[in-house]
């Protein structure tokens, strides 16, 4: 399954409270994603909370977009990525 990075902009700043409600919001996102066979791996959030870079596994960019649309999340761009790990190369060389 391809891995995607989704860039998002939250003009009002992203806030997810560390409460039961916040947890339920995240659970809802995971459930909705599952309907499209999209798995949310992890997100990186900028300090000002205006931008996120989200890592997903999914069958196609369209599935990622559908999942985002159903969970009300914006999409600036989607990139198809693969992992480049410095230690993999270093390990192979030694």
């Amino acid at each position, binding site marked *: 399954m391809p891995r995607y990075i989704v860039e998002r902009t939250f003009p009002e700043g992203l806030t997810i409270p560390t409460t039961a409600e916040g947890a339920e919001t995240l659970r809802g996102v995971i459930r909705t994603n599952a309907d499209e066979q999209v798995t949310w791996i992890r997100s990186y959030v900028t300090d000002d909370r205006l931008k996120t870079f989200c890592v997903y596994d999914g069958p196609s*960019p369209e599935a990622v977009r559908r999942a985002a649309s159903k969970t009300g999340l*914006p999409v600036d761009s989607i990139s198809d990525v693969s992992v480049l790990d410095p230690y993999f190369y270093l390990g192979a060389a030694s």
Partner: protein
Amino acid sequence: MLLERDRELATLAEQLRLARLGSGSLVLIGGEAGAGKTTLITEFVQPLGRQAVIGACDPLSTPRPLSPLRDFVEVGEHGNIDLFADVLEQFGAPRQPTVMVLEDIHWADQATLDFVRFVGRRVGEHRLVVLCTFRDDEVGANHPLRGVLGQLARLRSTVRIDVSPLSVDAVRTLTADTSLDAEQLHELTAGNAFYVTEVLAAGGAPSTSVQDAVLARLAQLPDDVRSVIDTISIAPRSLDLTRALALDHEAAAIDAAIESAVVLADGEHLRFRHEIARSAVHDAILPARRHLLHRAMLDLLLAEEQPDHARLAHHSIEASAPELIATHAPTAAREAAGRGSAREAVALFRAAVGHEDQFPPDEAARLRLELGIELVKLDRPTEALAELESAREGFEAIGHVPDQIDSLRQAGRAHEMLGRPGDAMDCAREAVRLAERDGPSARLVLALNSVAAQFMLARRASDGLPFSERAAAMAGDLGLERERFAVEHTRACLELVGGDTDAGLALLDTSVDDLGSTGPAGRVTGLINLGTGAGEVRRYDVAIDALVECEATSLAHDNDAPAAYSRAWLARVAFEQARWDDAVAYASLVDATTTNRRGYSLLTALGVLGRVRVRRGDPGGVGLLEETIAGFDGHELQYRWSPVAGLAEHHWLRGDLDAMVNVLAGPYDEALATESEWAHGELGYWMWKAGELDAPSARAAPPFAAQMVGDTDRAVRLWERIGCPYEAALARSEGAPATALDALATFDALGAAPMAARVRSALRSAGVEGIPRGPSSTTRAHPLGLTGRQAEVLDLLVDGLSNAEIATRLFVSKKTVEHHVSAIYAKFGVETRAQAIAAVLA
């Protein structure tokens, strides 16, 4: 004794309960040979008595079409779809059997597979449970059943049961009263139920395979009993007692065979306990004797009434008797062809043609022609051409001109499938040349029409219309109605895509009705050409109407190919109208439902998906576009020009003008050789963007031409009238900064990130102020991914309103509702109202 099948029996009982409430199902029961599928079914069905009917497919290489259905219904003369609909109605009615068993569908002929699919798609709304057993280990990637299983698996009304091997504990139960070691027996047999029981019946005598075990039991029997058993193995399923006696066997020997428990008496029929046993015995008979036995069976069958030609052909082939094959195979082949069992027809025609010397020259050539026709139906054009060329040569040698012409027309179709329009045209012209010798005739009309059709495919109206006009006049003079309809249809298409669009649309409207008067298949042909033709010339309202009706009509008759192509074009139209979510939904539905991975429908759909990705800036667009272009290599330009434009657009968005020209140069030259204003326009436009063209060709479609001469206002007006928001925005972005600002709003709203970024950057460089920052945060979309209007229609649909009632409620036309319903189905990946409702309520 039935072991370890409680869960499966419970599943079957539950399906029966639901069916009685009106919610039927198709149960696919898979398992290896000898796993115990039949035993399971028998256990379930026996208490039901007359509430269940059973049909079985025969282990023949060329089974008779619809043979399992013949076990419980009268097949008669009417066509497949009508028959299937009748059967379904009959079984759905109250006080009728609720369970239909179809055994061994891995041996099913194509007509039977079509029946399984027909019923599988509709059974959810009937009081019926259909149980199909099959050997799942024999259904590989290329097996005809594989595609049907894939299409049915997606439906909620389809249930899957796997009959797995017995566990060691089960084997232990069976060996309880013997001295056999359960673990060893389990290991030897891998838990295969039939093998286990065979070993037990042989008292545990050693064997290395189940066939071995079966034959070991025969070894001790006297010759005459052995002979009876051999004879029974010649019949594909069971042998009538009277036939066994007629085949010169003593009643005593027959009784002894039954005593031995190798065969059993099932009413008036003698059969083996399992097909594994029958084929083991059959294959062990020495060849010469086997041939004689098949001959004897054949003689016996011939003396009876009601011949089963497929069976006669089977025994003739097994008897290796050329003159018998020549007598029986052709009839069986034609019966299979008539029922749409093309695979079986091909095998039988091949068997006949393998003994060509048995036939007079004209019959030999005719068999090859019919074989070629079936191969074309199976999408095997290379093999078809070999046969058709042989046929043509054969007819030429004996001077049968009309048949030569028929062979050429079929060869033309095969060339077209292979993407060789030049060769297709040669065949069409040769057909005309031959037909002209005999003056005006139906054949000449059709031959002229073939040439016109080739020009139509090449989008060359002025070359094609003279042929159409001549053919139309001739058909009129000769009073040939059906031929006239075909000719008028070609003429209408010629006008639509290469000549006068409005005239073409008017003619096609009439043509669709005319073709429809010959039956639903005719109407579908008309609609698909109207829909795709109108789509190509950007008359979207007309196109959508035709495509939606075509999709619905095709599905109602289980005619998958036009349904898939309709959807692919609905995707294309949605893409051009900037309804990208709908486009993706339709393309995905084609991907999910089509079995032909190299066909026109899937390639077209993937090409559309590629263009959407390019415009959104999503990954994976280029790959799809290149695949589509490669897949259509050699085919006419209209299959390729949109993906080519998409690839050029991709390169342009990255600023790679050289790559653009590489992609466009060849196709643009091809476009100039056609009379299609949209090919001239779209490809010319991207050539202009690449800096390769200064001015539009004389023929270029008006909105593109306007852009190329810098008349932005006119271009925008025209694009808005046609209904292409993205193209209108592109035109605006080529104008003054104020206009470009409007373009930006469109690109942001559509999610066209690459163009939005490009316009932003250009505006900044131009020093424009007050550029909006980006798309406003997304308002929460409809939870099911539908547009506002679609959501309204869906609510009423779920409430049970018909399309007409929804139209009244929402104050729109019924056609508009049908469009929305079609898009809703695509978004859910379903094909019927009931499935859509089920998907929503899930």
